[in-house]
């Protein structure tokens, strides 16, 4: 059932006997992101029976279903029909979420590495990093983790040679030309340049993640004292 021959997006294929992958395009771009978001909302609002989860990413959507409720071919036909309708749903204006970040050296274990690598001062790194509005392309990987774009190339820095065994929760980091936030303390190989006092993952809340797909993020530099105040 792969319709790759036609090279026409979106095309859909089985990813397993209980999941289908919809490919929306073949690159990472804001235009494709908007189509993914549109389809993600469209499929969600169609409330097809038997769907267990819908996972959007840069240029694809993975739909997991329960084959005991709906036959694989039946769901693939239903999804195809939805996609050809191509009706657009109302996408709200993106939220702009301000994320306070303390860039103090106590938290910013690798900020001097980032500065040295790019022949900048630490102040310049902070200034450049907190300048743009970053798009949350989607969440994935681990609970509440945002895939964000696009970081200014002036502060791009290769990942660490040896990943740290434990990166503290809330760490803000740079890996290659990406920036990210660690919602949970976990192993990680990115350069840590600061920490946010906000929790990105709160499982006891009705909306367990601070961020969602399509949000815009703005980093706001804060002092160590403000960090403590916000943390409490």
């Amino acid at each position, binding site marked *: 059932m792969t319709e790759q021959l036609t090279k026409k997006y979106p095309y859909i294929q089985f*990813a*397993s006997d209980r999941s289908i992958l919809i490919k929306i395009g073949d690159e990472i771009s804001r235009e494709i992101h908007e189509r993914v978001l549109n389809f993600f909302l469209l499929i969600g609002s169609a409330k097809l029976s038997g769907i267990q*989860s*819908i*996972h959007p990413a840069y240029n694809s959507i*993975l739909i997991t279903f329960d*084959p005991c409720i709906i036959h694989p071919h039946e769901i693939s036909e239903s999804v195809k029909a939805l996609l050809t309708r191509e009706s657009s749903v109302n996408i709200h204006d993106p939220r702009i979420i301000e994320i306070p970040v303390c860039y103090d050296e106590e938290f910013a274990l690798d900020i001097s590495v980032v500065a040295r690598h790019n022949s900048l001062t630490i102040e310049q790194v902070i200034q450049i990093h907190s300048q743009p509005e970053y798009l949350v392309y989607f969440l994935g990987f681990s609970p*509440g983790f945002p895939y964000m774009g696009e970081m200014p190339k002036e502060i791009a820095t290769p990942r660490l040679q040896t990943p740290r065994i434990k990166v503290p929760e809330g760490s803000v980091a740079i890996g290659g030309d990406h920036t990210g936030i660690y919602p949970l303390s976990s192993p990680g190989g990115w350069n840590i340049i600061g920490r946010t006092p906000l929790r990105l993952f709160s499982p006891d809340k009705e909306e367990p993640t601070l961020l969602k797909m399509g949000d815009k993020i703005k980093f706001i530099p804060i002092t160590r004292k403000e960090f403590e105040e916000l943390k409490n």
Partner: protein
Amino acid sequence: MPLMKVIKPGFQSTIQDLGRFGFSHLGISASGAADAVSLRIGNLLLGNDQNLSALEMTLIGGEFFFDSETIVAITGSDFRPMVDGNPIPLWTSISVKAGQALQFGMTQAGARCYLCIKGGFEIDNILGSSSTHIIAGIGGYKGRALMKGDEINFAGNNFKNFNSLKIKNEVVAEIMNNQKIFVTNASQTEYFTKETLNLFSSSAYLVSEETNRMGLRLTGPMLTNINNKDIITEGVSLGAIQVSHDGNPIILFVEHQTTGGYPKIANVISAHFHKVGQLRPRDEIRFSFVSIEKAYEMRMHLESLISPMSLASA
């Protein structure tokens, strides 16, 4: 309320149900029992809803004290279960008296054994499920594996007219057979050369020591011959067999990361997920490709086994 006290926790014992669905777009994988078939059958034996929480033990079982009477069913792999030192059968509903302890030892075959209890454990749902997700630190008992001294409540009941039931031997034999693991194509199967696909389905792979609820790393012939290695990160399915740049396959399992950027050569069929949950380090496995239609047929057959038709008087 009746409670079970952990005297010895075992190697890794967690509270599990059938999983937490609908949150992958927030980066949360479903978790749930590694061998969901054994959990469902244990609940079936007890007249429970199939999704009720049970205790999943891994490789080495624990010891658990009950302060009130109850009925339990032990399913999955044989961890040599005993009540106060006397061996008890698996796949059978058994009454436990107040003040008795259940003991489990080392596995005799597969990786996981389930202790199911009449009415389930009293565990608060987090995002709609009682499953422990160890990586996320949520669900189950305080979001972690059990430790010595933990106390878990369970539903009290009246057990006056208890009739012990068991699962028919031929059903157990069919569920627990660990021959070939069947797979379907995955989203990048066509990226691999024909030779690589043949190598994958004609070779034996060993389950490595780096194996847990997140994934099972395999060792065997390297799958390096790939036409296209560049994948844009996408959502991944339970049972996906992802091949890293060094050519080693890994089976993504119940606590998998929700996205991946490596090509996937195949995906374990849903009728065989429970077999993956029973694999131990150093076990040898072989894969065989089937169609989506065949996988669906096998899943429906498996479902037909998880029914009151499989019960008999013990």
